[in-house]
């Protein structure tokens, strides 16, 4: 009990130190937000006969989706509250194209307004501190003080955190060399650093060991930065230091992109985990050598956020949460579900499939509210488009089905693949996909 009280106090102090409410973007004009449902007329949600209270921690792709579909499918008497630190969501998807000025930061911002007004979801801006699953209560730090939220089910979707390498221990070091792996201020910092590169400069970036959020993302970043440098800083190079033994996603597309499309610009170095970052000289030391850059981008190892540890559900490698993929309930604690990048499953950590995990979880919770069991054979899909240049893209897709023998989601035989070629048609499709995915999640 004392321990618990100390824990609460410690976390509350941490939340205050973090400066609630969370800061927005310096240059945000809060323009193209809330694509989707026009207006905010409340939907006439029916009484389905189901009732219950769900609190969702994290308003990203998975969290917003589970909240929306709990209301859409569960109806008027399923009460849903989202707890989110930030005032709005900034999409990681397409954020590499902010580095190249191909899309604006404003176009990646999504408000919670429609989820609130049309779907009747309560959104509390704050930080989850502690939960009592048996008692059904979550304690949240808000700008106006702590608040208790009662739940029948708690859904946790806080995304990822980072384990920084040696040399990046201090806030100053982390401000000088950013990851930009959570879209926001760091994306703009990295954009400025790339723009400050000289003609004939060197951009060095690192790829963390798997699993990490958005498997094609680092390779995509290398490609679009290479294309921008080609046009704007001729003679420049991109060095990709990969902790993995080979390209970890969409290998055919990226091997071609590195060796043909961006030949002579991208240098790919596998088996090169970061040993040490020398911030002063912008040098990254790896077992494959030391690499100095005019601009340097380190994407650290992805780990489960501290909240998972605090809730006692960080029972998978690297502090992620093991779940039953029929309903995404934690294998450690009943009534807590974990979806999206925080969960440890055979599925990729990515926004499109995070959205689908949210739907599977919503369906299972609603069945439970009705006294039933989860769908015994869920199917999910992962799809994503990756820009290869500033005007062409490729794609990657897979369908997963529940395998009762291993109790995991497995790719359906034959149901996975990537684009045979990057082209401008896929680039246009990428924009349609992004718009529709975000509307399916936030509107």
């Amino acid at each position, binding site marked *: 009990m004392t321990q618990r009280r100390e824990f609460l106090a410690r976390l509350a102090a941490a939340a205050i130190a973090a400066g609630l409410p969370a800061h927005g973007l310096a240059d945000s004009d809060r323009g193209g937000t809330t694509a989707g449902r026009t207006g905010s007329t409340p939907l006439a949600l029916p009484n*389905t006969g189901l009732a219950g209270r769900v609190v969702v921690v994290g308003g990203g792709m998975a969290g917003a989706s589970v909240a929306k579909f709990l209301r859409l499918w569960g109806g008027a008497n399923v009460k849903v509250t989202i707890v989110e630190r930030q005032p709005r969501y900034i999409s990681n998807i397409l954020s590499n194209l902010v580095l190249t000025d191909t899309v604006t930061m404003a176009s990646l911002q999504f408000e919670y307004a429609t989820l609130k007004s049309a779907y009747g979801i309560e959104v509390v801006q704050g930080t989850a501190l502690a939960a009592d699953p048996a008692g059904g209560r979550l304690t949240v730090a808000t700008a106006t003080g702590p608040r208790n939220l009662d739940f029948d089910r708690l859904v946790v979707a806080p995304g990822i955190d980072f384990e920084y390498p040696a040399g990046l221990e201090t806030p100053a070091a982390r401000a000088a060399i950013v990851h930009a792996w959570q879209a926001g201020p760091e994306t703009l910092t990295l954009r400025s650093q790339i723009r400050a590169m000289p003609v004939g400069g060197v951009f060095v970036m690192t790829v963390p060991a798997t699993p990490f959020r958005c498997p094609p993302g680092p390779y995509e970043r290398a490609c679009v930065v290479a294309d921008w440098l080609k046009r704007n800083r001729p003679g420049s190079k991109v060095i990709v230091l990969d902790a993995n033994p080979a390209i970890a996603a969409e290998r055919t597309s990226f091997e071609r992109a590195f060796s043909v499309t961006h030949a002579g610009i991208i240098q790919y170095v596998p088996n090169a985990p970061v040993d040490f970052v020398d911030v002063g000289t912008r040098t990254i030391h790896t077992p494959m050598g030391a690499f100095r850059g005019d601009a340097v981008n380190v994407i650290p190892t992805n780990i489960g956020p501290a909240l998972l540890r605090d809730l006692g559900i960080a029972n998978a490698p690297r502090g992620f949460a093991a779940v039953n993929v029929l309903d995404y309930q934690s294998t450690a604690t009943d009534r807590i579900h974990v979806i999206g990048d925080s969960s440890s499953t055979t599925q990729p950590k990515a926004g499109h499939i995070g959205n*689908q995990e949210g739907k599977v979880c919503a369906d299972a919770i609603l069945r439970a509210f009705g006294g039933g069991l989860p769908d015994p054979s869920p*199917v999910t899909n992962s799809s994503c488009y990756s820009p290869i240049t500033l005007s062409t893209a490729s794609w990657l897709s897979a*369908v997963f089905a529940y395998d009762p023998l291993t109790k995991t989601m497995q790719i359906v035989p034959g149901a996975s693949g990537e684009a045979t070629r990057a082209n401008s048609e896929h680039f246009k499709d990428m924009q349609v996909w992004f718009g529709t995915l975000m*509307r399916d999640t936030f509107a």
Partner: protein
Amino acid sequence: MKKILVVTLAALGTTGALAQQTQAPPPGRLLASNCFQCHGTDGKGSGTFESLAGKSSSEIYNELREMKAENKRGEIMTIHAVGYTDAQLRAIADYFARQR
């Protein structure tokens, strides 16, 4: 008719999370939700890939079956068609046909 049903359900009332389920999830809904990310929630909306809501079930089913049979490499929809059994494709097609 719909209105009467809603009123009746409301009159029955529910108490907390233990209320017995008065309706099973519509068949095919969770499967079909895999399509929403690209075809819009419930297959509706503008600016999406091909809109599916209200199309005839046989049209959607036959199209998916054809893509599955052709199994063309490098087609994103082939991957999705191959990912489901014929019975699942039928359930998905039926779900979108019911959306108005």
